[in-house]
């Protein structure tokens, strides 16, 4: 409301030192009240069960001072950066370089990913991290179908991940089915649950849908925790079989892959195999998404994201369209879940909390909702960032939440890219008001 108008008058509108100081003082005062009890006083259950408390006025003062200083810095930055929303002109030469870099980055990244197990063969940590990142890339791409392409906010995506993981875990431990049989089954079951949930609720509007999917995710988790006879409850399922190389086990025995190939056995083989497995699954997700985007159904998804009312007016069955998006996304979630179960060898409801859903959603949003490359880069940034913050475990989710808020304020359409609809008319037709009045528009 009070943003200064652009133009020559801007200089005189710049707030002075007094203004900045006043604003920072108010912020500090607000912070003082907010933090007074929550940070200034620390409570804890004492040895006898009685609550005790002690004061932390030093921390309180530090926090208030930080807010005061931060507020001044933010205000100065805002002045230096100018009002948000103005168009910044990038010189054409820089633009073309950026475009080239943009086109080159995907193949380079892909080749590098293929080479990771070769380059870092001895570094188990990097391989494990790579597998983790790729799992989230796959989850991100799967959710991207729902959120990015069809524009449906799904806060319970982890439910399908859980369905996939538990499908594989239970089928293999109870019936001895192999990974390769269970993988499609896990996908189908997850998709089935997606349809089951989607069918009744997809008529809902955006935020209602979000809450219902969230509730659904929680229901699945609570059922897993409480249905102890089937799922083992909070103890989870352990002893989940490791995957085999299309039937050949990756064990040191005589019938193992190493013996058959005549090479020395190493546990790294399995890690490398898992790495390529998740890479293949992720690329499958990507490929299917890209192909689907060119089919009528994919175009209907994108149209739905842009304008639901217009879609309905054009005769697109919005319920079926949403349902297919939901089922497709859920299926990939199920695949990823089955992979997760076989990699960990142990799963418990702890792995399928709302935080996980929010993390995958954040990856999709950060990646720019619909951009495949963006999602991959976002997964790399997020999971890599989490690893960097490993020492500050308790601050991790705090920083994550703050980042999400700031991201929405700063770049609501995503950091890395934004995917425009795949197809649109070659030339936009200008319709004059007279034609429109005659009913020709």
């Amino acid at each position, binding site marked *: 409301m009070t943003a200064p108008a652009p133009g020559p008058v801007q200089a005189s509108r710049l707030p002075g030192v007094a203004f900045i100081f006043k604003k920072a003082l108010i912020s500090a005062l607000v912070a003082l009240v907010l933090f007074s009890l929550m940070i200034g006083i620390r*409570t804890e259950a004492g040895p006898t069960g009685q609550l005790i408390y002690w004061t932390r006025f030093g921390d309180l003062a530090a926090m208030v001072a930080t807010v005061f200083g931060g507020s001044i810095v933010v205000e100065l930055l805002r002045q230096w950066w100018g009002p948000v929303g103005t168009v910044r002109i990038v010189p054409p030469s820089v633009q073309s370089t950026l475009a080239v870099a943009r086109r080159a980055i995907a193949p380079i990244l892909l080749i590098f990913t293929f080479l990771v197990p070769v380059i870092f063969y001895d570094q188990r940590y990097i391989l494990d991290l790579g597998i983790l990142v790729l799992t989230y890339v796959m989850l991100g791409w799967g959710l991207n179908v729902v959120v990015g392409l069809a524009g449906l906010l799904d806060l319970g995506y982890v439910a399908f991940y859980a369905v996939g993981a538990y499908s594989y875990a239970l089928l293999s431990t109870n019936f001895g089915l192999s990974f390769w049989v269970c993988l499609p089954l896990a996908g189908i079951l997850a998709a089935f649950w997606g349809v089951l949930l989607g069918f009744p*609720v997809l008529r809902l509007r955006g935020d209602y849908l979000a809450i219902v999917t969230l509730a659904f995710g929680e*229901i699945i988790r609570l059922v897993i925790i409480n249905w102890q006879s089937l799922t083992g409850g909070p103890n989870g399922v352990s002893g989940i079989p490791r995957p085999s190389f299309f039937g050949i086990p990756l064990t040191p025995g005589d019938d193992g892959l190493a013996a058959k190939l005549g090479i020395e056995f190493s546990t790294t083989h399995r890690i490398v195999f898992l790495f390529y497995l998740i890479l293949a699954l992720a690329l499958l997700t990507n490929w299917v998404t890209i192909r689907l985007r060119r089919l009528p159904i994919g175009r209907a998804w994108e149209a739905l994201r842009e304008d639901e009312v*217009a879609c309905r007016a054009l005769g697109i069955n919005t319920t079926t369209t949403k349902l297919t998006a939901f089922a497709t996304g859920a299926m990939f979630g199920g695949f990823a879940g089955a992979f997760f179960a076989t990699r960990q060898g142990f799963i418990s409801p702890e792995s399928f909390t709302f935080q996980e859903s929010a993390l995958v959603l954040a990856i999709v949003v950060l990646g720019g909702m619909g951009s495949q490359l963006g999602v991959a880069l976002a997964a790399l940034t997020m999971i890599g960032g989490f690893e960097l913050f490993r020492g500050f475990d308790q601050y991790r989710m705090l920083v994550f939440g703050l980042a999400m808020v700031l*991201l929405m*304020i700063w770049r609501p359409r995503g950091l890395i890219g934004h995917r425009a609809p795949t197809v649109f008319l070659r030339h936009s037709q200008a319709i004059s008001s007279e034609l429109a009045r005659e009913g020709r528009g």
Partner: protein
Amino acid sequence: MDYFAQQLINGIVLGSIYGLIAIGYTMVYGIVGMINFAHGDIFMIGGFIALISFLILVSIGLTVVPVILLIVLLVSMAITALYGWTVERIAYRPLRHSFRLAPMLSAIGMSFVLTNYSQIAQGARVKPVPPIITGGYTLHEGSEGFVVRLSNVQIIVVITTVVLLAIFTWLVSRTRLGRDMRACEQDQTMAALLGVDVDRTISMTFVIGAALAAVAGMMYLLYYGLVDFFMGFVAGIKAFTAAVLGGIGSLPGAMLGGLLIGLIETLWSAYFSVEYKDVAAFSILIVVLIFLPTGLLGRPEVEKV
């Protein structure tokens, strides 16, 4: 029968707490059209502030229970209201004209911030308090020795809720602020043209919602005798369910929905299984949205192009 009567009492008390939280959801949804995902955490913060101020008051030697309760109520309402205001100012106001998923995602981020902030500031362990209000009345003594009891805490929770609801209904229907709120709810641009300060009105909505959530937090503390940093999540979803059940945007609806959810949850725990009580509450949300998307007392939403 006695057992049922006892559960009914418990359900109404729980429902009052949900109803108080649900009002915050329903008001914010009515005026800005977004689900304030962080509202459950505001309730949790309210509980914590009530706990801390209570501890301080007791340790400085105050012993008159009504005075303590009044001060705790006012302090937690004031500080929590400021939390509500700050959250709106930081996370929602800059996004008012952004694309439609943005406020929701920002709210989820804010919810994480608040949950983890109180975990870091106050530790992850459950904070118990000794019962502050004791005593009660025996309403009926059954033949098998089952006693229907109405404790003083329960009476206080229900009375506080009713009083606050009365004050609040008066505020919305009779004051300038209430009129501004209803105007903004209908058409923000028109309201602004007619001299309503839209920004201020929306801020006030958040402040009032947070204050009521603080009351709910304090009632929760009194009733259950404990708070922990994670209690806002589930309570928040249930209160949202209550708001949807009653018809989002409708104040009496939120209270009615809260009571129904409280009753359903208590009766479900009493007659079916405690483990699945949250599943029952969440399932109700899904069922209501499918068969009764406008809720019990809500107005049908007309989608316009």
